């Protein structure tokens, strides 16, 4: 059965009706009933521009038949009849197209008869190309001698795709025949597809005989052969081909291809030639050498050994290649360059070490990270931060106790930058949270803030009551930035009883931030914001809380906001919150959608730059629903898609009612009007309002940037 929707509603009906009647006694819902016989009769006289309904019917039948062996053979006979018996060229082109789906050797003679037809040659050949068996092969080989030069290119191409060995001789002959480079090129390209010594010999022979533009064609074919040899495990044969193509007398792109090939098949053995080639006078060769060195297996040591010997510009490239290779074998030479070179070379070595280095380079980098030279210090720290691997973090931590305070602070900063989650908070806490230096402990707090774990939370919570104001403040900052609301109660308490106003303010900001983190009920939000308002000492903090409170849709929130309306300092903000909450209470309590429900709120957020969208083409059936929490009478509805002008609903139905499972009939239906669609609802009442998109638009989503409802 055909189940997929295509081309809109008419085709769906067409397919569905047909599926009901098996062999097709009845077809299009909007056309007279049609039989398979009638459809084929129509096809025979069909010309582009005529009604295509019967062709679409036949194509649907082809798709059904290819999944039903009993239908294939009689259907193939019908298309053969179209090809052989006086049909229009457009009909024959259609038949060729269908036979491409499923044609067998039985179709080959009828298709072969069209190979000389200027209009249809490529269509027949396309179907013939995929038909297995000698009939198709013989037909194509025979056509080589009868078709014109343009058609011959196509026939040659098809023979190359088929790779029947019988074609090698005629293709070789055509490849050698002078006078038409386009035909000869096609023949050479086709020969390269054959996994055959005979074809390889032919290409090798052509290497000696061809001239001009044909040389590049033959070289390309030869590389195709080399790649196949390599894939089959014969790297030696492949290398021989590449060495012959790397001859200085060869055109540059042959040599480029040869260098790429040598780097793949010879690996470390190719290193000398690649390193020599980076000094070539030819830019293409130099580029190919760099690519080869970057990608060839097993050449790291050779590059590392050679790099210091080159002049600086080449050194820079080779050092970069060493970094990209990410091979630890490069570490010794990179360390030498860092210690022995300067300027760009040293910086490049640092960068490469960041990619290729491991824990073994940590001591060296730690030493440089504390150097007097600011640039050197910066590069070393940058490299430490970039090094991959958890063992690097352990190595850094292991070095900490050998350093003074400045070094400890610096390395803790590095650990923080590394987001070194693998250094356990317990280890940091045990070894360093009680360090004698406040500066170190402050850094420990900052680092622990990046480790959302129970151990970190415990250490930070304790430190929030430390005797040192610096440590207390650092701990509170870390808690305030915690990624979930675990320290929420602790922060609320600190907002009330921390020793200094700045600490209380820091704690309050963290508490306010965490109120909004989880999906809390309106009543719970009102309770938390009410507490935050009571704790706030600064008007600016109260105003911030009132703004957040204004986004809560609930009577409890309204009650909290109303308490502050008469306040001298924040009364205006409280009134704004009251107005906002009342507006929310008048609007929908929630919105939902058939898809992408997480974005549904974007349609009612008052911001036309955000949107809810289906994320896929309009197909019909997508819906968007508003729940007002109680019955409302609706005057009108406006859908604004101005920022996505093609995403308006191609069709819609609007339902209103109190039971979202049983709306009954739509109160209104219609089609979108472009960027802004206004829908009159004429007082229809209910708790829920649902818009169902009923049209289709391939490539266009249904989006709502802003939705507004006028309540009566």
């Amino acid at each position: 059965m055909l189940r997929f929707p295509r081309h809109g509603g008419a085709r769906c009906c067409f397919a569905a009706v047909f599926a009901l009647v098996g062999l097709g006694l009845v077809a299009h819902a909007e056309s007279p009933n049609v039989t398979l016989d009638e459809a084929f009769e129509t096809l025979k006289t069909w010309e582009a521009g005529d009604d295509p309904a019967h062709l679409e019917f036949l194509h649907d039948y082809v798709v059904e038949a290819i999944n039903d062996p009993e239908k294939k053979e009689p259907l193939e006979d019908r298309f053969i009849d179209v090809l052989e018996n006086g049909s229009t060229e457009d009909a024959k082109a259609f038949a060729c197209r269908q036979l491409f789906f499923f044609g067998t050797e039985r179709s080959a003679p009828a298709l072969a008869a069209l190979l000389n037809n200027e209009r249809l040659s490529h269509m027949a050949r396309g179907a013939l190309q995929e038909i297995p068996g000698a009939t198709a092969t013989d037909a194509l080989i025979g056509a080589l001698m009868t078709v014109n030069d343009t058609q011959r290119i196509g026939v040659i191409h098809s023979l190359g795709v088929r790779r029947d060995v019988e074609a090698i001789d005629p293709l070789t002959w055509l490849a050698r025949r002078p006078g038409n480079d386009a035909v000869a090129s096609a023949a050479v390209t086709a020969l390269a597809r054959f996994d055959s010594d005979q074809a390889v010999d032919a290409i090798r022979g052509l290497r000696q005989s061809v001239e001009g533009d044909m040389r590049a064609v033959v070289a390309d074919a030869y590389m195709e052969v080399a790649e196949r040899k390599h894939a089959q495990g014969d790297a030696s044969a492949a290398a021989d081909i590449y060495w012959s193509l790397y001859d200085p007398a060869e055109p540059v792109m042959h040599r480029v291809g040869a260098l790429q090939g040598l780097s793949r098949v010879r690996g470390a053995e190719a290193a000398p030639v690649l390193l020599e080639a980076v000094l070539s006078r030819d830019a293409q060769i130099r580029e190919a050498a760099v690519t080869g060195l970057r990608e060839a297996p097993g050449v790291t040591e050779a590059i590392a050994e050679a790099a210091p010997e080159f002049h600086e510009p080449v050194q820079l490239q080779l050092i970069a290649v060493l970094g990209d290779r990410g091979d630890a074998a490069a570490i010794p030479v990179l360390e030498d360059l860092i210690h022995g070179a300067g300027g760009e070379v040293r910086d490049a070595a640092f960068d490469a070490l960041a990619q290729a280095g491991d824990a073994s380079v940590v001591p060296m980098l730690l030493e440089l990270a504390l150097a007097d030279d600011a640039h050197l210090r910066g590069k070393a720290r940058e490299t430490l931060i970039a090094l991959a691997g958890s063992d690097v973090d352990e190595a850094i931590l292991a070095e900490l106790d050998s350093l003074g305070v400045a070094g400890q602070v610096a390395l803790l900063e590095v650990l923080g930058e590394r987001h070194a989650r693998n250094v356990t908070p317990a280890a940091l806490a045990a070894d360093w949270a009680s360090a004698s230096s406040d500066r170190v402990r402050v850094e420990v707090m900052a680092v622990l803030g990046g480790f959302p774990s129970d151990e970190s939370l415990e250490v930070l919570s304790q430190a929030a009551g430390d005797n040192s104001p610096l440590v207390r403040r650092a701990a509170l900052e870390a808690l305030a930035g915690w990624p979930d609301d675990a320290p929420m109660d602790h922060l609320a308490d600190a907002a009330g009883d921390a020793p200094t106003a700045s600490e209380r303010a820091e704690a309050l900001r963290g508490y306010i931030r965490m109120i909004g983190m989880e999906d809390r009920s309106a009543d719970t939000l009102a309770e938390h914001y009410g507490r935050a308002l009571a704790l706030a000492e600064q008007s600016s903090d109260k105003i911030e809380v009132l703004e957040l409170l204004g986004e809560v849709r609930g009577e409890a929130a309204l009650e909290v906001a109303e308490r502050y309306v008469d306040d001298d300092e924040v009364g205006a903000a409280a009134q704004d919150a009251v107005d906002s909450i009342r507006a929310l209470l008048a609007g929908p309590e929630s919105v939902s959608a058939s898809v992408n429900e997480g974005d549904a709120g974007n349609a009612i957020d008052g911001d036309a730059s955000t949107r809810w969208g289906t994320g896929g083409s309009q197909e019909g059936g997508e819906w968007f629903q508003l729940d007002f929490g109680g019955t409302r009478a609706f005057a009108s509805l406006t859908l604004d898609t101005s920022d996505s002008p093609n995403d308006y609903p191609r069709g819609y139905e609007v339902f209103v009612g109190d039971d979202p499972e049983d709306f009954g009939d739509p109160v209104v239906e219609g089609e979108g009007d472009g960027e802004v669609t206004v829908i009159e609802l004429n007082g229809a009442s209910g708790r829920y309002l649902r818009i169902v998109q009923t049209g289709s638009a391939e490539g266009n989503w249904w989006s709502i940037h802003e939705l507004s409802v006028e309540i009566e």
Partner: protein
Amino acid sequence: MRRTRQYSRRQFLKRSAAAAGAAALAPALGSLPSKVARAVPANERINMGFIGIGNMGSGLLQWYTNNPEVQVVAISEVKDDVAEWGKERVAEVYADRDDQGSFSGVDTYVDFRDLLAREDIDAVVIATPDHWHGAMTVLACQAGKDIYCEKPLSFDVGDAHAMVKAVRRYGRVFQTGSQQRSDWNFRFGCELVRNGYIGELEEVRCSVGGPSWDHYLPPEPVPDGVDWDRWLGPSPWHPYNSERISGSYSGGWRLIRDTSGGMMTDWGAHHFDIAQWGMGMDGHGPVEIYPPGVEDHEYLTYYYDNGVVMKKNGANGVLFIGSEGRVEVNRGHIQTWPANLMDVRLTPDDERLYDSSNHRQDWLDCIKTRQRPICDVEIGASSITVSHLGNIAFWLNRGIQWDPVAKEIIDDAEASRWLKRPKREPYAWI
């Protein structure tokens, strides 16, 4: 791969040449990273040719024309008026450039092979309809050009394979125009998935469109200044019709089977590409594909050999569903469940994905360093193969099995026919 160096291609080349004895090309040291805005001397710019400057091509032309590292020197276009527009546009921009170098105007060509034959052109941008991408890319590689090719990468699986081979054979720098990879949302979302922040990945949903179909359109006169035969190129011949040549995103050639894979490839080149990235399936692919309605599959469904199931539909962009969370990404949209996954900071042990914030600039940078860009040809090929396999399943209305290593459909000769579709002469070059 983290990129920390960018050296001017020509600076490097000239420095190397100087060392080889070409004193006249002695370099100026102290190169700046290419991402630093600066005036680039004319003789250091990348000479660029454009093949196809319609919808997407026009945007690319204007962006690269305004890039100080680039000198646009040639346009190939089968529509005369479009070519003329492009030529004038470039001239307008360059009229304000202080340093013209040897630039003497943009040349236009109807046959792109004439553009490729110019030895002074370093790189080409291919922004033609899909059915031309394969041949143009292969010939550009043979001519030694680096390539930015618009998505979807290819017209069929065979073309994609040929493109990969040619790029590798000639060591070219190739960027697939699936630019979502250079958007933070998508990268971060994929990093969350790749590093297990949503637990074990179980399912992926992608909102892409449907396949292309045959369209039966009436003949119309070929407008003056349009080379219709060359526009059709390797695709089957049809009489001219304005719908066939239209680049409209809601119709035109994109929805026609002879010239495109439809919205399946047009959007699959974006969202399936991101899905492959998040799954760590670059270079690989699904093993079974079922169209909707076959064997109880409600949506087009892909099965991967690691157990992950991917469905077409059901997401705002791409939705990754793991055992412990979800992440959904689209343009301008990223959402995680739980919400605090947005606060994740990658650790040193986490896998970092290629970091590019500008897809077009990334290609320029890689032309200079000879590194592979963020959406290298092999990535583009494996991503678009997902779309092609979906189309084949749709078109034949049956499930297919795919060998992602051998890149073959298993035990289905009829389905395999669609991997490499016939090409019309004389354009049957690959």
